[in-house]
Each structure stands twice: as structure tokens, then as C-alpha cells.
């Protein structure tokens, strides 16, 4: 058994299925005028120090409707975070090349200037990262960091208005005592509390879209449940759209309306959440679901793995355009 051979294989049959699906999705997006965010045939390339370009995302299309929670799910290295970062063009400029189109409320993200982008970031589009500890400045109080976010985007507000919108955001993010949180420093908080602060900071300018990149992965399950509840309530009270990036199929099932399953920089399957779990069509999705140890019913002796399903569908086990894999495979066997 060779992990990376099995992990990275992409069956020929899947590729055909995928390209047919992509074109269908694009059509849907064209017709869906209500979509808040449209990503059309996005390709992202990164370069290394020797100016060699590697394609990370191979033509991804999806749309996010108003008030919708879209899940992007996949294993590490599948390009889900790269796709999400591309929505705000957060990748290092010199080493990144984009193709395709991303439109947010009809504005083409790739033709915006840096200044316009900055009003979008933390303004109409909020972003939550995986690790709340490294997202906050340890030398400033929570209040200082929240106030800065408000003043940058809404300079006309008075001091009192700034203060009250900070407190309102923290309250909406599930803080029981926002006033005292404002005076405290990040080290005084647990991981779950800090992630609430991050959610509050993302909410503070009333974004229309929230991008959450593995927001609960670093947290305990009990805390995770509380935060997922906060996000779900926010969607309801603020009619906000959420792009939720995760590798946890349980979180997807609990949270999302629609799901995009990504693998090796491509979308394997795109469907409403109930369809993905009840009738997964793509062998990769089937494998991903079967690999989760079941919480009810009989306990299996062995777990099925993704490779079982890819083998069934007649895949070749060749490595596929991944930098790390190349290192492993070009080394002498």
C-alpha cells in the first residue's frame, strides 16, 4: 500500500464526469441572477523561487446565493483554501496567477484596484481563519483591534457609535460579556472565545458574505457545536451568505445548504446537501463518506477507504500534479 498513490489518484472516469458537471454548473450560474458571488472557471497558479508555475486550482465554478450556506469540502491539499483566499485575492501578488472570473454583486474581483479590494475585505466580505490565536495582535486589546476595523470601513461614525457597534458584534458572536471582553488581551482568552472574537470582527461591518476557512477545526467538539450554532443563527438574523470550508463531513451535514466536493484542485461533485449524503454520485465522494467511522448501527471490522471506491471505478493510480507528490515519486524507488 502506498498512501500517496492512493490518496492522489484521479480516475479517468471521474474526470469525464467532472467536466460535464462543470459546464452544467456554469450554465446554472449564468441563469441565477440572484447569486451574490459567482466563481467561474477559476484557475490559480503558484510559482516557486525558480519561477516555475504549478497549477493548484484547475477550473472551479460555483455560485453562492443570498442567505445561502455553501460548503466546500475536501482533504488537505485539494485547493479549497486556495479557492477561498482567491475570492479576496489574498494570495501573494508576485507568485500567484489567476485565470477565470470571480464576481461579487456584479463586480469583477480581478479588475478591482488594491484600494477597492481593501474596502471589500472586512467590509462586504468577512473572513474567519482557522487559527484564532495567530489572527489577532497579542499586544493590543480586543477592543483596540475591533475599533480599528470599524474606523477603517466607516470613518464617519462617532466614538460612541463605534463602541456600540463593536459591542453589538461581539454580542452577536456569542459573547456573554462584550464590555469586559473589549478591555482584555488575546492571551486572556481560550481558543473558543478567541474564535468568537474573530467572528465578531468579521461581522462588525455587516458583511453580505462570510468566508469561514475551517473555523472550528482547532476547537473541542463541544465548543465547535456552540460556534456552529452562532454561525447558523447569524445567517438567519442577518440574512448573510456563508462559504464554509471544512474537511469534516459532519460539519457539512449539519450546516450547509449546498456542497462542493473538491479533490486535486477540481470540483468532483456539486449538489444540495441532502443529495450528497443520500446519493453521492462521484466515487470520490462515496469514498469520503464511507471512510468516516459510523456513530450508529453496527461497528464495522474494517473501514472502507477512498481508494477502494476509486479502484472500483477503474482508476489508474498515477500521481497527479501535486508538488509534494512529485518529491515522493521522483525519489529513487
Amino acid at each position, binding site marked *: 500500500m502506498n498512501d500517496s498513490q492512493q490518496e492522489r489518484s484521479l480516475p479517468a472516469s471521474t474526470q469525464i464526469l467532472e467536466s460535464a458537471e462543470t459546464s452544467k454548473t456554469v450554465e446554472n450560474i449564468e441563469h441565477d441572477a440572484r447569486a451574490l458571488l459567482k466563481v467561474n472557471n477559476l484557475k490559480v497558479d503558484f510559482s516557486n523561487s525558480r519561477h516555475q508555475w504549478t497549477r493548484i486550482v484547475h477550473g472551479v465554478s460555483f455560485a453562492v446565493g443570498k442567505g445561502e450556506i455553501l460548503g466546500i469540502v475536501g482533504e488537505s491539499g485539494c485547493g479549497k483554501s486556495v479557492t477561498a483566499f482567491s475570492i479576496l485575492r489574498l494570495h501573494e501578488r508576485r507568485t500567484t496567477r489567476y485565470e477565470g472570473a470571480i464576481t461579487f454583486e456584479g463586480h469583477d474581483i480581478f479588475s478591482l484596484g488594491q484600494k477597492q479590494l481593501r474596502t471589500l475585505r472586512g467590509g462586504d466580505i468577512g473572513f474567519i481563519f482557522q487559527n484564532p490565536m495567530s489572527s489577532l495582535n497579542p499586544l493590543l486589546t480586543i477592543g483596540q483591534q475591533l475599533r480599528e476595523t470599524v474606523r477603517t470601513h466607516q470613518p464617519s461614525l462617532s466614538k460612541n457609535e463605534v463602541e456600540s457597534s463593536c459591542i453589538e458584534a461581539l454580542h452577536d458572536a456569542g459573547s456573554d460579556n462584550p464590555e469586559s471582553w473589549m478591555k482584555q488581551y488575546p492571551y486572556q482568552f481560550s481558543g473558543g472565545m478567541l474564535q468568537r472574537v474573530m467572528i465578531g470582527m468579521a461581522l462588525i461591518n455587516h458583511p453580505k458574505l462570510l468566508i469561514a476557512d475551517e473555523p472550528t477545526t482547532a476547537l473541542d*467538539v463541544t465548543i*465547535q457545536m456552540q460556534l*456552529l450554532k452562532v454561525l447558523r443563527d447569524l445567517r438567519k438574523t442577518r440574512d448573510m451568505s456563508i462559504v464554509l470550508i471544512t474537511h469534516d463531513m459532519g460539519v457539512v451535514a449539519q450546516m450547509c445548504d449546498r456542497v462542493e466536493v473538491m479533490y486535486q484542485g477540481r470540483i468532483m461533485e456539486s449538489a444540495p446537501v441532502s443529495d450528497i449524503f443520500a446519493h453521492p454520485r462521484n466515487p470520490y465522494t462515496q469514498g469520503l463518506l464511507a471512510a468516516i467511522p459510523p456513530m450508529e448501527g453496527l461497528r464495522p471490522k474494517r473501514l472502507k477507504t477512498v481508494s477502494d471506491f476509486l479502484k472500483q471505478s477503474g482508476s489508474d493510480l498515477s500521481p497527479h500534479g501535486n508538488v509534494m507528490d512529485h518529491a515522493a515519486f521522483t*525519489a529513487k524507488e
Partner: protein
Amino acid sequence: MIGQRKAILQVNSITKDFVRRGFTSRAQTVMRAVNNVSLQLFANQTYALVGESGSGKSTTGRIICALERPTSGTVVFNDENYTDFSDHLLRQKIRGNIQMVLQDPFSSLNPRKTIEHAVLEALEIQKIGKNHSERLDAVVDMIERVGLSSGMINRYPHQFSGGQLQRVNIARALVVRPKILILDESVSALDVSVQAQVLNLLQDLKQEFSLSYLFITHDLSVVRFIADRVGVLRKGELVEEGTVDEIFDHPQTDYTQNLLSSIPIPNPEHRQLAF
């Protein structure tokens, strides 16, 4: 049924305090990480220790592995109390029998040494095998048993994926033929499909080498798959213990119930949160 068998490892009411001194003052604060925990491990059985971060599950594992000494209480392996063993005695009697695999497969290996070196070193320290070539045979054999190919042994850690590296770490732990393997969040950092492969491998190896596992994790779905008995830790105390079926079907404490109901179920028809 279990009561009649003899435990190969007994943990008798261990307590561990971590003392923190102030930077300037002499004032001390005591953190009780593990509080009066007792458990038993039986041959060819998997005991899962679950709990939230900071509940003391890793500290318990480290004490059993003799990486940490308890403040009070004893740990007994095969009728021998090794709580106060010297480093020399530990190496002679315990290290070869109790091994550990950690969470992060990358940081567990020296990036400048080949995996052959990593696995071979364990044999050399334990003085297993007559000569180099005999040890090398044992390394190749173990590498193949964990599902890697013998041609890979001259590679460096960066040339492997996370799942492959965790197999290397398992090989390194098992090459000295221990009786007990402590798995501290060993599959938590892996993708779900790779996690399934490594869990299957662990099940196979357990049979092949008649191992006992102490499986430390926060992921209850993995526990249900792999464990025979489960202990639930909270703030350093063992709040509940039982067979997998007892814990999952009839949890006795509110804490365990809360823990179980917090796992996101991968089924959109059963939403745990009201919309």
C-alpha cells in the same frame, strides 16, 4: 468477563501536579493535571481515553509511558511497579514494552535522518539483534508490515505524506516488539481517508502482535470503531468508564452525554441544531 483476566498494566490512583513559580515572587500556583485516575489495560485490548483539551489525557499517557513521574500513585506493568525506576531500569524493562506514537508525524522524526536510521536506532538502543544486518532485516520487515515498500527506507521524512510518515512512526514503535502501544491523537492530524487506512492497519497489527492499545483522542467516532473500553476524562478526573456499548448507548454522566451529542453527525436528515 474482563474481571477474571489479569491486567498487563495497572494505573493506581495517579495524581500529577504541575507547579508554576512566579517570575519574581516565590508564590507558587499548583495545576492539578491528573487527579486520582485508575485504569487497567488488558492483553490484546484497546482502551480509549477521551476528553476535551486540557482534561489530562495526554499527561496520563505520558505517565504510563514513563516520560513523566506522577506526584502520587503507582503504575504497574506485569506486576512490576515502575513508578520510581531509574532511567537505566526504565530503558531495560519498560521502554521495550511500552511505546508511543504522537499526533504530528512530521515533528516526531528527525528531518536530517533517513527513516531507516529512525527505525534502526530504536533497535540499537534496545540492543535487539546480534549484528547490523540482522537489525536491518528487522527494519525492512517492519516497514513492509506497516504497508510501505522496502525501497523507501533510504528516504527522508520530507519525501513522505502525512499518512506514510505515521506508518513510519508506528513501525519505529513496533520494531522493538512492545506489549503496549500508546497512541496519543495519532490519527487526528490525518485526512479522513488516510485515517481510515491507518485505523485498519492498527487493527491488523493488534491481532498480529497481540498488542494492547491506549488510544488517546478527542474524536469519539474513531473511539467507537477502535476501542473495547472507554474512559472519559474531565479536568483530570475519570468521570466515567465502561465498554464502548455502555458509553455510547447508555452514557451515565451529563458530561459524556454532552460530549456525544456535540459530534456533528454526517447526516443532514438529523440536524442537531434547530434552524
